[in-house]
């Protein structure tokens, strides 16, 4: 065929790019390393390539030029071009190797593919579509068993990708199809219970029978059958994910103190505490907007308020860790952006719960990804989104427990600055409904209803549509235009398109007015979407605005100038109805009142029975060093540097106390401190607290301890304890079981009590229920793994002048070490119990009145510049805190337990060393400041335990005057760093 003289036909070309000889083939190395980890011994040789698939009117020289100009780096890569449509161009696969291609499923977001297409078009190439693939060559004598596991576990994730063996043959890359409008009506009015349940199940609606009855009765009243889009809208709006019907509904709770009834659990516990505090503060109230917008808002300085929100993205992360975490962070960034008139993100947080990476692969239940793969994927997902957005990720934690195996938890948070006075929004009838940002595709359909059911081994395949990959650059561009539009006052209201897509965003914004939506106007990623798919798609990076028509031109021009897409998809009305149209034909008409207030109230039963208490009798030894090292090396405590350094924690240049601190810049900081407004010295402190192990003994004290931990972490770096706002994120199992809901109720009551006692308001929160994984065991029985009740408390502190911040690393030899706070015999649920295999014991409690005074005094001492280093006591108690301070500062320490024994009356060395009693700090104080510090703690528990040294060792003298811990700092630090040194 002569291609020189005429325009080439549309065909698909492949450009295969490989590292040149001598450059490391990193992807191949990853595959080999993962194979080794999983014991796939017959995987011996791997090569990899990245591959670009280009569809267009191209001939070989043009593709060659595209490769040279754009696709391959001439210094470190080589490339090869072939026509993927012609089998004649297949090069034989090298002897002894098998070729595999990993491609995205059609419709899955391919960011690099789309960027490639645009860049090539910009260079003048006639490229209609571009996609990417990964190629692998594997030794072909691999065993069948290893091959299958390699494909499933290492090379591709079936939720978003598929594997093609041998050379690729493709004639088209085109996705999408034709859509022929057809209005779908669902006969419901005469349906029996069985049919109603079938409709809910088959439609993926996650509505229960009582809810289906309510809907049926409503349409009987209206006098017609509902359409599919109406049912979907109701299902999305009433979903657990969107409405939090369990926690805002009535609950009857029984425990050892008797029975209590809540009409609205959250309102009567967590909200109530905040309302009480605000009333007490009166004109000194520093809350601005709490529990009503996408994020909580409090006062910061004269120019800005500050918002905070933490969300979870658990189920998507279980199925596709990278995409789940990626869209988790992308989603939570849109929360502050959709708060008030839009806030500018200043930092991210992330907290993860995983099964330990050492969990044996051969014991994995079907449908469960190996923990190592989940961990790597989740970390990479957060990294790639947060870093690209230019938002520093500054705080986090990781908790490990076997019970997170099939249902890992991914909490993502965002703090943002909102100019003072921009916290109110108001939709006006007549405003245009404008969607801005990413296009709508089939991705993420049924995310809201999917996250309201438990996972099973089928979820990996059945829920593929709910899994997505984000595009951080689209969101970054969106952020830039929105902040400009906000400052120009172009819109009246804004919200994010999260779970439920347009249905939730428009439904919520128009709840008080009414809305009319023209679904065919939404920009689509590809053709073929039905009106219902457009309405409920959860495609990422979209925001919805209420824009006065007269501002549309200005807004459109602003978007065009920055390459952001915006479209009018309807208008807000004054009808209090939600009217949905496709190409002028009405497909839905719902009363806003029924949608938002029609949900039946379901009374839930909850009960809690305290487990039998058993004393914990610690073993005795003359050398506690090995136990201390085991605690430092335990999964929860060990260094998370491998994760932290993959996040940009410095971008925006506001960093004051980094996540890693100390002499060699790698010790564990208590909280991050930032200066978010470069014009001001006022700072924020961001921290978290969580301890699922305590919950096994008592969820009440678990919740109290989590609040205490989050608050004391902020106080430890210098934040003012009277200006700390907190968030609750409950991740629980299936609360339809009374005992599961009972433990949640118990935790919620602790939240109320401690928030009130500390003067620490909750300003926002979120719950994620149904975190369970069920599967069939080889013997045919069903096994359900329920996560431990996991309450994350995130804290946002403030510090008047960042210059007053302190870090936890010891600063110089010859300083004194003071323990402040009360030490009690509280070893239950501690890391001492965990590493020694002890059970029972008393769970750490919170003595709230005393705690508040200790926080105040600690803060005053820090504020007055009297404290050289401050570290809170948490997992591993006094011994772990002292060890961390010493190795972070590369300064030795000598402590004596006798004064602590005398002050507390405790005679057991293990208790003194490892008790995790709350509200305690270890302070390093220069001798000349000792008196002034002691004055600030007059009539509070404070014990001088020893001093810092230049010996490079941590030594702790026991009650018989011998050294019961005597370890070099190198060894302690090594024990702490080694486990996650990946």
């Amino acid at each position, binding site marked *: 065929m002569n291609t020189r003289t005429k325009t080439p036909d549309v065909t698909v070309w492949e450009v295969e790019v490989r590292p040149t000889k001598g450059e490391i083939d990193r992807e191949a190395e990853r595959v080999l390393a993962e194979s080794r980890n999983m014991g796939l011994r017959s995987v011996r040789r791997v090569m990899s390539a990245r591959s670009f698939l280009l569809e267009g009117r191209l001939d070989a020289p043009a593709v060659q030029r595209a490769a040279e100009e*754009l696709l391959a780096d001439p210094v470190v890569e080589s490339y090869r071009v072939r026509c993927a449509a012609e089998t004649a161009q297949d090069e034989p696969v090298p002897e002894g190797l098998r070729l595999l291609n990993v491609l995205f499923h059609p419709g899955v977001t391919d960011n690099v593919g789309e960027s490639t297409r645009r860049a090539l078009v910009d260079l003048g190439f006639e490229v209609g579509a571009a996609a990417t693939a990964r190629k692998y060559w594997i030794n072909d004598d691999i065993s069948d068993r290893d091959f299958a596991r390699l494909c499933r576990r290492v090379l591709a994730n079936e939720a978003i990708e598929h594997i093609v063996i041998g050379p690729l043959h493709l004639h088209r890359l085109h996705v999408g199809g034709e859509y022929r409008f057809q209005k779908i009506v669902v006969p419901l009015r005469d349906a029996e219970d069985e049919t109603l349940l079938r409709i809910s199940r088959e439609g993926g609606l996650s509505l229960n029978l009582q809810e289906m009855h309510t809907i049926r009765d409503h349409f009987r009243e209206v006098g017609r059958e509902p359409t599919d889009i109406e049912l979907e809208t109701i299902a999305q709006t009433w979903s657990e994910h969107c409405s939090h019907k369990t926690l805002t509904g009535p609950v009857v709770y029984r425990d050892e103190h008797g029975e209590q009834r809540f009409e609205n659990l959250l309102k009567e516990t967590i909200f109530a505490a905040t309302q009480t505090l605000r009333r007490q503060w009166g004109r000194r109230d520093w809350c601005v907007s709490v529990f009503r917008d996408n994020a909580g808002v409090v006062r910061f300085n004269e120019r800005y308020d500050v918002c905070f929100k933490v969300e979870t993205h658990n189920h998507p992360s279980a199925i596709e860790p990278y995409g789940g975490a990626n869209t988790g962070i992308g989603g939570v960034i849109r929360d502050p952006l959709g708060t008030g008139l839009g806030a500018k993100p200043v930092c991210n947080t992330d907290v993860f719960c995983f099964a330990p990476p050492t969990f044996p692969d051969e014991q994995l239940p079907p449908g469960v990804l190996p923990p190592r793969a989940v961990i790597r994927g989740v970390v990479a997902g957060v990294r790639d989104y947060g870093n690209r957005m230019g938002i520093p990720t500054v705080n986090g934690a990781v908790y490990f427990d076997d019970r997170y195996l099939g249902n890992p938890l991914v909490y993502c948070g965002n703090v943002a600055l909102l100019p003072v006075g921009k916290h109110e929004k108001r939709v006006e009838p007549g405003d245009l409904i404008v969607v801005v940002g990413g296009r709508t595709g089939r991705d993420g359909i049924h995310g809201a209803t999917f996250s309201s059911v438990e996972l099973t081994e089928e979820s990996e395949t059945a829920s593929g549509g709910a899994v997505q990959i984000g595009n951080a650059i689209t969101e970054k561009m969106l952020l830039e235009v929105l902040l400009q539009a906000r400052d120009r006052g172009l819109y009246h209201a804004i919200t994010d398109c999260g779970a439920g897509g347009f249905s939730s965003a428009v439904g919520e914004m128009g709840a008080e007015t009414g809305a009319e939506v023209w679904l065919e106007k939404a920009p689509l990623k590809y053709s073929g979407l039905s009106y219902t798919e457009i309405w409920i798609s959860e495609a990422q990076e979209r925001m919805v605005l209420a824009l006065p028509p007269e501002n549309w031109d200005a807004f459109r021009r602003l978007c065009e100038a920055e390459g952001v897409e915006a479209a009018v998809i309807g208008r807000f009305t004054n009808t209090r109805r939600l009217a949905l149209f496709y190409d002028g034909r009405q497909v839905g008409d719902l009363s806003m009142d029924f949608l938002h207030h029609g949900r039946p109230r379901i009374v839930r039963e909850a009960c809690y029975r305290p487990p039998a208490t058993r004393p914990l009798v610690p073993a005795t030894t003359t050398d506690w060093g090995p136990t201390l090292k085991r605690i430092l090396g335990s999964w929860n405590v060990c260094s998370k540097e491998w994760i932290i350094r993959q996040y940009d924690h410095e971008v925006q240049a506001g960093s004051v106390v980094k996540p890693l601190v100390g002499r060699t810049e790698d010790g564990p900081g208590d909280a991050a401190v930032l200066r978010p407004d470069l014009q001001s010295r006022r700072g924020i402190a961001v921290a978290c607290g969580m301890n699922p192990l305590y919950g096994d003994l008592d969820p009440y004290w678990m919740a109290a301890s989590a609040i205490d931990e989050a608050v004391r972490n902020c106080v430890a770096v210098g934040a003012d304890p009277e200006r700390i706002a907190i968030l609750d994120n409950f991740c629980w199992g299936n609360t339809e079981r009374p005992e599961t809901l009972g433990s949640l109720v118990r935790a919620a009551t602790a939240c109320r009590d401690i928030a009130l006692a500390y003067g620490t308001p909750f300003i926002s929160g979120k719950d994620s229920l149904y975190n369970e994984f069920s599967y069939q065991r080889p013997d045919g029985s069903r096994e359900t793994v329920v996560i431990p009740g996991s309450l994350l408390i995130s804290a946002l502190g403030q510090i008047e002048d960042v210059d007053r911040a302190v870090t936890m690393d010891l600063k110089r030899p010859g300083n004194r070490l003071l323990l402040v706070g009360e030490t009690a015999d509280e070893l239950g649920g501690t890391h001492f119990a965990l590493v020694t295999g002890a059970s029972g014991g008393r769970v750490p409690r919170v003595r709230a009145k005393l705690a508040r005074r200790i926080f105040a005094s600690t803060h005053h001492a820090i504020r007055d510049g009297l404290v050289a280093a401050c570290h809170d006591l948490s997992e591993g108690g006094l011994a772990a805190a002292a060890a961390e301070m010493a190795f972070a500062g590369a300064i030795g320490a000598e402590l004596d337990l006798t004064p602590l024994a005398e002050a507390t009356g405790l005679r057991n060395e293990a208790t003194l060393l490892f008790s995790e009693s709350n509200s305690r700090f270890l302070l390093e104080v220069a001798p000349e400041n000792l008196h002034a510090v002691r004055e600030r703690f007059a009539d509070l528990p404070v014990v001088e335990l020893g001093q810092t040294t230049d010996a490079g060792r941590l030594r702790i003298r026991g009650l018989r005057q011998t050294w019961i811990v005597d370890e070099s700092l190198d060894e302690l630090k090594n024990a702490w760093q080694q486990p996650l040194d990946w």
Partner: protein
Amino acid sequence: MARPRVCVIRAPGTNCDVETAHAFRLCGAQAERTHLFALLREPRRLHDFQILCIPGGFSYGDDIGAGVIFGTQLRVHLADALAEFLQRDTLVLGICNGFQVLVKSGLLPDGPGGLSKGGGGPSRRRVTLTWNDNGRYTCRWVSLRVDNPRNAFLRNLETLELPVAHAEGRIAVSRSDLLPRWRANGQIALSYTWHTALLGTTLPAGPNHMAASAGGRPAAASGGTAAAEVSVLPYPHNPNGSVGNIAGLSDPSGRILGLMPHPERYLFAHQHPRWTRGDAREPGDGMALFRNAVDYYA
């Protein structure tokens, strides 16, 4: 005093533009954040400026490769405007992603000649910024030595501490004679050196760290690209395995500088990781680069 006008370009995915413009302003410049699309529509806008700065970020997501698409835009659409810009007594600064853009466009290391079609296009490129030796994005502080204190941005400077935050910061070259030539021309502007924080302690310096005493290794081992005359320092002193420990490159005139570390992130003592230990300076080391650029027009 003259107030030079600085054009801080932001493309889709640029994310250090605000703090970089802030740094220039603190030093007395008039800095304007300008969208790349506005320059592409109207390249003449460059006439209004004395300093052009491409800040850090992930331009176009770094899809295809770090800085590739932005660099291609400069090369294809703005080559003439940039050549004209550089004919005046102007300065160009590329930080992190901006450095990657300057290299991928061809403007570094050889100046505007590398941009033009006569330069041979991207396939003739002999230098690149590619994946860190450790294979992942890495955020940490490094210590730097100024190799060419005659560079407009580095005048009178000897050593700096700054943070790096990148995945593709390793300089690799395809010809071994480039380094001696660059050295002779004063184009090697900044190098990674033993990191201050890790000296004078026997403590292990963190996951995957080799002890500071482990010594360097020959550059050739870092991948088959050309060997250099300087042995490559171990991680984390050289955080990415860059050939010759190069952290920043200049054109022969000393008016164009590209560097991987972020000077805009160390303007004040409290941005330093060890300021609570009294190890930081006020102002921070990064301020001097911006001050030098402004003072160039004094």
